[in-house]
């Protein structure tokens, strides 16, 4: 199968000039220090790492904004920084700081502008636009000025904008940040649906472990400009994302909980913090047990923070991970859907 | 009294931090003064006169230095008052009527004086380079030093009034714009009153604009006693009139604030 993206030993150094009084000191910063990866067409990849890890720099090189210091990259058969405009027609981008939607006008006007920017034929544009409106449920606010929309509505419209010209690869940078739980899930569903049904390759960066689990099938962790982990989400999940943290507050002292896979992390008065191994015990069972042992006043369910997950990755032996092997895809697909 | 002086001083000190603006003022003044030098040089030559409107070429350029310095030193009085009206800060002060205008005057005067001084310094250096020093006369300078603070005070009262219009108008920037442009044209920023069409001169000597801009500049370059006296009277009368209007408007505003519940 052809690769949508292939990167080989990509390096990007910046020269950082600092002023100390009257003198200038130059230091070289290795933002990207030899990244090699390849992504097949139709894959859905999460590209994660702490701030300053080199994520945005890599994406900028893949989208043609930045020229690398050395190394090669190929996106859909184009060298991004050499064939920027040709590639731009075939990729879609949703970057956090950048909003394509015109703030004082309804999304409909931005759609029309985009059809002119990308020179989409009118009939193609209309049918694709109407399909996006239907699938993303935009009709209720299509004619409302963007400044009046909620963040969730805006993000749906933004993602729809990035798909209007029928790209084969989309780059999404923190698309769910700031969204409430429902909006977040809606957006995740839309993106993964688009990936599955339209075969669009998805390249997603996020700080949210939930994004990774629900949208991506593969995760690449990058730190200090290098790839430190490149594996299927299901496997990473098995290792690091299996735990959920439940914070429960009871009306009075509950009975003690004794369930395999549930560990009590903290206890203070009527407030408890449980750690649940979702692969050892189904969450449904845990929930009913929690309700059974006492009268629940408040409950919060959280994924472990990504920083913790990444820190955990470093402490695990390196022989556990390697390049993605194209085996047992069906089994993993079933697992990641749960 | 000392309280207001302190406010003025603090305002000056904070403006000193904005010395970076000096560069842009310099370039602008340089361009304007240079261009007018060219224009007047040509005009004096073509009309074969050494004195136009009672001013020599040298005096004409120095006249411009003063008028530009006055115009360019304008602080955002109306905007400040407008904001205070809308945020309700002014309403809170209405119980002690005199402190707010005096506060505002002290605050903006510090700014204005410093700004004027800087503009004047820069403009003088440029004028010295272009046409050389003016034939200084002490009386002219003295008259100028007397008229300038009154000019600023008068300008202040009018802008203050415009700011008060915020009680009734949605937006006072239109009024501010119109008044500032009228000051430029009818105040004789670019041409002294003597060169206006005859019919105009009579009217303009009554209107406040020339008392703010033309007056101080004219006496600075010629030390003309007649001009000085008429401008002085013009300024004093205008200040009294506008101060009176402010009082009335203030009371109206007070009534409006209390009837609307503050």
């Amino acid at each position: 199968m052809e690769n949508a993206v292939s990167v080989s030993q990509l390096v990007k150094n910046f020269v950082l000039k600092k002023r100390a009084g009257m003198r200038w000191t130059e230091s070289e910063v290795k933002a990207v220090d030899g990244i090699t990866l390849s992504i097949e067409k139709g894959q859905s990849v999460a590209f994660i790492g702490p701030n300053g890890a080199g994520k945005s720099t890599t994406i900028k090189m893949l989208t043609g904004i930045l020229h690398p210091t050395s190394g090669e990259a190929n996106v859909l058969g184009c060298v991004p920084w050499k064939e920027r405009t040709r590639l731009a027609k075939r990729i879609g981008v949703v970057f956090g700081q950048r909003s394509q939607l015109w703030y004082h006008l309804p999304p409909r006007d931005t759609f029309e502008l985009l059809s002119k920017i990308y020179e989409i034929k009118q009939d193609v544009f209309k049918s694709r636009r109407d399909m996006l409106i239907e699938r993303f449920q935009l009709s209720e606010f299509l004619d409302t000025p963007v400044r009046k929309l909620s963040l969730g509505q805006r993000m749906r419209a933004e993602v729809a904008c990035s798909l209007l010209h029928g790209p084969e690869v989309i780059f999404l940078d923190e698309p769910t940040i700031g969204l409430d739980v429902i909006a977040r899930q809606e957006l995740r569903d839309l993106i993964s649906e688009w990936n599955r049904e339209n075969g669009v390759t998805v390249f997603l960066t996020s700080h949210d472990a939930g994004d990774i689990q629900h949208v991506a099938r593969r995760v690449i962790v990058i730190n200090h400009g290098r790839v430190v982990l490149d594996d299927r989400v299901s496997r990473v999940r098995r290792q690091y994302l299996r735990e959920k943290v439940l914070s429960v507050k009871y009306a009075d002292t509950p009975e003690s909980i004794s369930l395999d896979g549930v560990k009590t992390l903290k206890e203070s008065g009527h407030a408890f913090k449980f750690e649940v191994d979702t692969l050892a015990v189904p969450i449904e069972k845990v929930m009913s047990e929690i309700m059974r042992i006492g009268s629940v006043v408040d409950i919060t369910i959280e994924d472990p923070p990504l920083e913790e997950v990444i820190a955990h990755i470093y402490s695990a032996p390196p022989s556990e991970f390697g390049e993605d092997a194209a085996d047992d895809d069906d089994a993993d697909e079933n697992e990641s859907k749960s | 009294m000392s309280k207001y002086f302190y406010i003025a001083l603090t305002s000056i000190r904070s403006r000193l931090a904005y010395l970076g603006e000096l560069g842009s003022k310099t370039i602008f003044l340089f361009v304007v003064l240079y261009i007018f030098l060219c224009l007047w040089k040509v005009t004096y030559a073509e009309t074969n006169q050494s004195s136009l409107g009672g001013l020599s070429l040298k005096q004409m350029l120095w006249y411009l230095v003063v008028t530009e310095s006055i115009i360019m030193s304008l602080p955002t009085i109306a905007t400040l008052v407008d904001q205070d009206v809308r945020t309700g800060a002014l309403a809170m002060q209405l119980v002690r009527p005199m402190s707010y205008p005096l506060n505002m005057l002290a605050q903006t005067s510090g700014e204005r004086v410093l700004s004027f001084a800087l503009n004047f310094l820069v403009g003088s250096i440029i004028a010295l380079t272009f046409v050389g020093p003016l034939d200084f006369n002490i009386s002219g300078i003295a008259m100028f030093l007397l008229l300038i603070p009154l000019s600023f005070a008068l300008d202040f009262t009018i802008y203050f009034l415009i700011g008060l219009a915020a009680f009734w108008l949605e937006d006072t920037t239109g009024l501010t714009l119109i008044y500032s442009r009228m000051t430029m044209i009818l105040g004789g920023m670019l041409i002294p009153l003597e060169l206006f069409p005859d019919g105009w001169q009579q009217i303009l000597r009554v209107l406040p604009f020339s008392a703010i801009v033309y007056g101080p500049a004219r006496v600075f370059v010629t030390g003309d006693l007649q001009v000085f006296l008429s401008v002085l009277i013009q300024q004093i009368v205008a200040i009294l009139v506008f101060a009176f209007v402010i009082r009335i408007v203030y009371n109206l505003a007070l009534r409006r604030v209390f009837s609307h519940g503050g």
Partner: protein
Amino acid sequence: MSWLTSYANLASAYIKINFKSLLAYRGAFISQMVAMFINDFVWIAFWCLFFTRFPVVKGWGVNDVITLWAIAASGFGLAHMIMGNALALPGIIMRGELDSWLLYPRAVLPHLLLGKSSASSWGDFLFGIVVYVIFVKPDLPHFTLLMALICSVAVLFVGFSVFTGSLAFFMGSAESVSTQLRIAMITFSTYPSPIFQGFVKILLFTLLPAMFVSHLPVSALRNMSMIDALYSFGGALGVLFAGIIMFYVGLRRYESGNLMEMRG
């Protein structure tokens, strides 16, 4: 050729959406236009007063100055009505907003310039034409030539704004420097050209090309001189090319990531 139609279509799409966006705040739009009108009118008032007292200066009368203002104001207005981002270029470069424009399948410069329309520029544009028609009362040939010269001056102003704005690729304080240069350019462009002699005159034909706004177009209209009109167009194109080159040289530097500060 198809490149031309492609970008003409892009331009009309942007003009349409920019206008719509400005209309969304009709009140502010109109008041900004009116404010510019008043600002510009002050100068016409000044010149009328001046020329009442001094009817002819170096062969220029009040009609000539009004012609000059019509060309300069409408030219500046047209330039920034359509390519309003020319004024915002230094800020766009320094805030890394170029990246957004680089993601589109379009040549960066024309696309980003079209991205915004300056509301007050519409006032400038209308002012010049209105004042010319009312004061000079032109016949059709003169009016047509006026429109052509307005387009020429618009091209020049875009080129100049791009040139000075592109300084942001090379220096940190480009925003204030380019504002100063722009103010100087506009100021020099709105005074009768014959008053400038010698070294300054040369300067105004080269580094600060105000003569291509104040001298050549006005004399072209005065004498219906096609030569002067051609010189005006030539000068405008020259400034435009200088701006384009400056921008793309800077862009090369930007894309290699060697800007003064590292972008996030």
